[in-house]
C-alpha cells in the first residue's frame, strides 16, 4: 500500500543511519566556527505507521514522517540548544549559530567540565530489525481486526479501543570531542483498552505488548485478555478506610521501581530536589530490594550502546539489598561529582533510566497473594510518589480486594496514601515469577501496613 517515491529515500536512511552523519558533522563544524567551546549535534529521521481502533472498529490509518536536527552548544559552561524539523544545510548553519548565541547569553557554569570523549562500548545491543520495515498497513490492519474479533468472541458487546504502531528511526550524533555515532532502531507496539457496560455497571481494563524485533512480538491475544479482565472489573465497590497489605502486580510494581530509578537521578540529587538526596549508601528500602539498570541488553525496549550524549552506557546497581548503592549520571553530573559517567544522559541535559532489573524472591505471585488474609491487589496503575517529598496520595484504579488469600471483588473510589521510603521499607515479599517485556522482568511486590482511604474514617 506504500507509495514508492519518498519511501525509497527514507528507507535507505533507516537502513543506513550513517548517511545522516554528515548533517550532524556540519552542525558541529558550524557551531565551532561560531565560537562554541563544546558542541554536539544530532540528525534524525523516523517513520511511524499506526492503526487506531475506536468503538471496536478501525478508526484511522496514519503515517507520520518526522525529521529533526538538534545542536547543543556550551560557551563557558552555559548551554544553548536549538532544534528544527529540517535537514537542509542552510538551515543547519542557522540553527548552529542560534545555539551559539544562546549559549553566550547563558550564565557561565564553573561546574561544567567537558562533553563525553569517544569510548568503545562494552556491548552493542541489537535494536534494529529489518523485518519490522517490511510490515505494511495491511498487516497492521489485520492485527487490529483479529484483535477486535477475538475480543468480541469473549464478549460480543465489548467496546474496544487502542492502536497498533510500527515505527523505525535512524539518527546520527557528532560532537566536538570526536564522537561519531550512527544508530537505528525499530519497534512494534500494540495496546488495547476494553470497556464492558451493563447499564451503570462498568468494567474496563488495558494492556499492551511491545518489542523491537518481530520474533519478540505477539500480535494476538491482548484484546481478548483485556476483555476478560474488563468483565472481572464490573460490580466494583468501595473499600474500608484502614491500614492493610497492598500487593502490587507486575506493572504497578515496575512503576514503583521506576520511581526509585527516577529518584536516583544524580542531577535531582545534586540539586537536592530528590527524596534520595544525601541518602547514598543508606538504607532506603527492604533488604529484599535489589535493582540495577542495564541499557545493554540485546533487543531490550530501552537499550542502546550509547546515551543521548554519545557516552557509553554502563550497568549500574541502584539498590543493593535495600541500600541505595548508585546514582544514574550524565556527563555534567559525573564531572561535577568527580565520579565515572554511567551513560544515562539525555539530549537536553537531563538523566534517564533504561531497562530496570529487579532481584527476584522465592515465592510465586499466587503464593504472595495466598498469604494475605485481608488486603488489596493492584493490577494496573501506580502509586505515583512525589519524587521530591516522597508523599504518596493517589487512586487505586484497577484493584481487587483480597480476602483469605483470594481476589474477591474489584474496588471503586479507593485511594492510597503514604510515604515513599516507608513503603519501600515495608516491602515484605518479591515474587519469583514475573511478567516479561524485552529487556525487562517485572515481578510482583507485597507491602504491609499501607494506608487505604475509601468509605468512612479510620
Amino acid at each position, binding site marked *: 500500500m506504500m507509495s514508492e517515491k519518498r519511501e525509497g529515500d527514507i528507507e535507505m536512511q533507516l537502513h543506513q543511519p550513517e548517511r545522516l552523519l554528515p548533517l550532524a558533522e556540519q552542525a558541529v563544524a558550524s557551531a565551532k566556527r561560531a565560537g562554541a567551546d563544546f558542541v554536539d549535534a544530532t540528525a534524525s529521521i523516523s517513520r511511524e505507521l499506526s492503526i487506531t481502533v475506536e468503538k471496536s472498529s478501525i478508526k484511522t490509518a496514519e503515517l507520520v514522517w518526522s525529521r529533526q536536527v538538534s545542536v547543543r552548544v556550551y560557551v563557558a559552561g552555559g548551554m544553548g540548544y536549538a532544534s528544527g524539523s529540517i535537514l537542509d544545510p542552510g538551515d543547519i548553519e542557522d540553527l548552529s549559530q542560534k545555539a551559539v548565541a544562546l549559549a553566550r547569553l547563558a550564565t557561565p557554569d564553573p561546574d561544567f567540565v567537558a562533553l563525553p570523549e569517544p569510548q568503545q562500548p562494552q556491548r552493542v545491543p541489537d535494536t534494529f530489525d529489518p523485518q519490522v520495515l517490511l510490515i505494511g498497513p495491511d498487516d497492521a490492519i489485520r492485527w487490529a481486526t483479529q484483535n477486535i474479533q477475538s475480543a468480541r468472541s469473549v464478549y460480543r458487546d465489548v467496546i474496544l479501543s487502542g492502536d497498533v504502531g510500527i515505527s523505525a528511526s535512524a539518527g546520527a550524533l557528532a560532537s566536538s570531542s570526536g564522537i561519531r555515532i550512527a544508530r537505528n532502531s525499530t519497534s512494534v507496539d500494540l495496546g488495547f483498552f476494553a470497556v464492558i457496560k451493563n447499564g451503570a455497571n462498568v468494567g474496563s481494563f488495558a494492556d499492551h505488548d511491545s518489542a523491537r524485533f518481530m520474533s519478540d512480538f505477539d500480535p494476538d491475544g491482548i484484546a481478548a485478555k483485556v476483555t476478560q479482565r474488563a468483565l472481572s472489573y464490573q460490580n466494583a465497590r468501595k473499600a474500608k*478506610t484502614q491500614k492493610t497489605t497492598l500487593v502490587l502486580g507486575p506493572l504497578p510494581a515496575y512503576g514503583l521501581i521506576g520511581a526509585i530509578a527516577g529518584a536516583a537521578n544524580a542531577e535531582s540529587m545534586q*540539586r537536592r530536589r530528590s527524596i534520595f538526596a544525601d541518602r547514598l549508601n543508606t538504607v532506603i528500602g527492604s533488604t529484599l530490594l535489589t535493582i540495577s539498570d542495564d541499557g545493554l541488553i540485546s533487543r531490550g525496549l530501552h537499550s542502546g550502546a550509547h546515551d543521548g550524549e554519545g557516552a557509553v552506557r554502563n550497568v549500574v546497581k541502584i539498590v543493593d539489598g535495600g541500600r541505595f548503592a548508585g546514582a544514574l549520571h550524565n556527563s555534567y553530573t559525573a564531572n561535577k561529582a568527580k565520579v565515572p559517567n554511567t551513560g544515562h544522559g539525555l539530549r537536553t541535559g537531563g538523566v534517564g533510566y533504561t531497562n530496570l532489573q529487579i532481584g527476584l524472591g522465592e515465592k510465586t505471585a499466587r503464593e504472595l497473594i495466598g498469604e494475605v488474609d485481608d488486603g488489596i491487589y493492584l493490577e494496573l496503575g501506580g502509586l505515583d510518589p512525589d519524587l521530591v*517529598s516522597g508523599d504518596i496520595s493517589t487512586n487505586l484504579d484497577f484493584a481487587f480486594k483480597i480476602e483469605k488469600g483470594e481476589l474477591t471483588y474489584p474496588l471503586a473510589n479507593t485511594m492510597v496514601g503514604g510515604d515513599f521510603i516507608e513503603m519501600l521499607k515495608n516491602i515484605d515479599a518479591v515474587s519469583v515469577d514475573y511478567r516479561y517485556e524485552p529487556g525487562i522482568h517485572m515481578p510482583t511486590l507485597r507491602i504491609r501496613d499501607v494506608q487505604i482511604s475509601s468509605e468512612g474514617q479510620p
Partner: protein
Amino acid sequence: MTTDVKGIFDIICPIVERAKRRGVQFADVRAVARRGGSILVQDRRAEKMFYSKSAGFSVRILVDGSWGFASCDGFDRRLLDDCFDQALLLAKGSAQAVDDRAWVALIEPVQQEARCLGKVDIDEVSLEKKQSICLEQERLALDAGEGMIVNSVVTYSDSIREQWVANTMGTQVYSSLVRAHTSCQVTAVKGDIRQRNYQARGHQGGPELLLELDPEQFSIKAGKKVLQQLRSRKAPAGEFPVIFHPTISGLLAHEALGHNAEADSMWTGHSILQGKMGEQVASDIVSIVDDATVPGSFGSEPFDSEGVPTRRRDIIRNGVLRELLHNLETAAKFDVEPNGCGRAQDHASVPLCRMSNTFFLPGSSKFDEMLKGIDRGIYLREGYEGYVYTERGQFLCHAHEAQMIENGQLGEPLRDVSVSGLILETLMNIDRVGDDFVMIFPGTCGKGGQGVPTDCGGPHLRVRRMVVGGQQ
C-alpha cells in the same frame, strides 16, 4: 513571523482540489509552522537557553467512511504530494475493515484570517530582558523562602504558531497565535521533610506576561507557600466534606466533567455521561462552561484545527447536561452544529474533541457560609494535576496545599494531598457554589498521546463528601 500566508495556501489548496477530483467524501490539508524559545533559570544561573523551529503538512482523507492520514516535516511540495498519496491509500486500504463509518458535518465554508499576537511582539523584548526578569523572580522566591530553599527553577517560554487549514467544503482559514508561559518551582528542606511549591502563569499573548507579572502572586507566593508546607502535617485518610478553592475548582471542572463531555468519548461509549443529554447530572446550582474565546486565556484560539470558528459551549446549565465538545465528525454523528473543539497538538496529529478553557460559573455563596456546618472537613487549594477514567467516571485531583476544617473554622495546614470521586456522585454532591471566580491554571491537557494548551477555573465549591487520600 515571516511565512508567506498566501504562498502556503497556494501549495495546500491544489491538494484539496486534487482530493475533490478523486471524488473523496471529505479531505482537509493543514500546514503548521511554529517558532519559539525558552529560558531555564536554576539556582541563580540562567542555565539553559532553547530555540526551536518546526513546520509541516498533513493530509486527512475520508473515503467510504474510512480515514487516512499522513504528515511530513518541512514545507516541501514533493513531500506534501507523497502525503496525499499515502493518506488516500491508507483510507482506501482500511475501508474494508471499518465498521463504525465516519462522516462529517457539512458547514458553510469559512474563509478568514485571524492574528492573535498579544500586546507585545515576542521579538520586541530581548532575551537578555526576559532572562533578567526570570532571575529577579527567582531571587524574590529565594528571599521569601528565608534560607530554607535548596533548589529553585524559573522557566519562561513563548512561541508563535501559524496554522493553515483548507478543506473540500471550501474552508480556507489562517491563524497566527502567540502563547507565553512561565513557572516557578522551589524546593525547601527542614530536617527530614522536603517539600516543593509550583506556580505557573500562562496566557494567549506575548512577553507582557513577564513584564506584568506580580511577584506577590507568583515567585514570592511560591517561596512563602513552600515554607508553610514544611510546617504542615499529613492529611487524614477517609471520606470528608471538601471545599475547593478557586485555584483548584477548575481542575474539578476539567477532570470530573470536561473529559466526559468530549463528544468522541460519548460516541465511542467511553463517557459516563452517555445517554444523559438533557438530564440532570449535577446539582441545580452547578453550571459548567468551556469557552475558547475568553480573551487572553491559555486555551483560547480563534479556530480549531479543522478551521471551525471557536465559541462558548454551555456544557451544564443549572445541573442539566446541555452541550458536548464536538469536532466535524461527532457533530455529524450527533446531528448538531460543530462548535470548534477539533484540536490537534501539531501537524502530525489528527484533531480530537478537546477542551479549551473550562470553568464553573460563579454562584451566590460566601466562603464563610461554606465553612459553617462542617464539623471535620478538608479545604483544598492550588491544584497541581489530575486524571479521569471517563468510562467509569472515576477521577483524581491533586492539591499542593490543604487545610483542616474543624467546627466550621479553618484549622491546621496540611501537606499536599489528592481527592478522588465518582463523577455523577460528586457533581450531585456540590451543595455550595461561591460568588468569586479565578482562572489561573494554564497547562497542557493530554489525550490520545496529544497535548494541547488549556486553562480552567471557577469559584469556591463545597462537596458534601469525597475520598481524601491521606496518609494517616
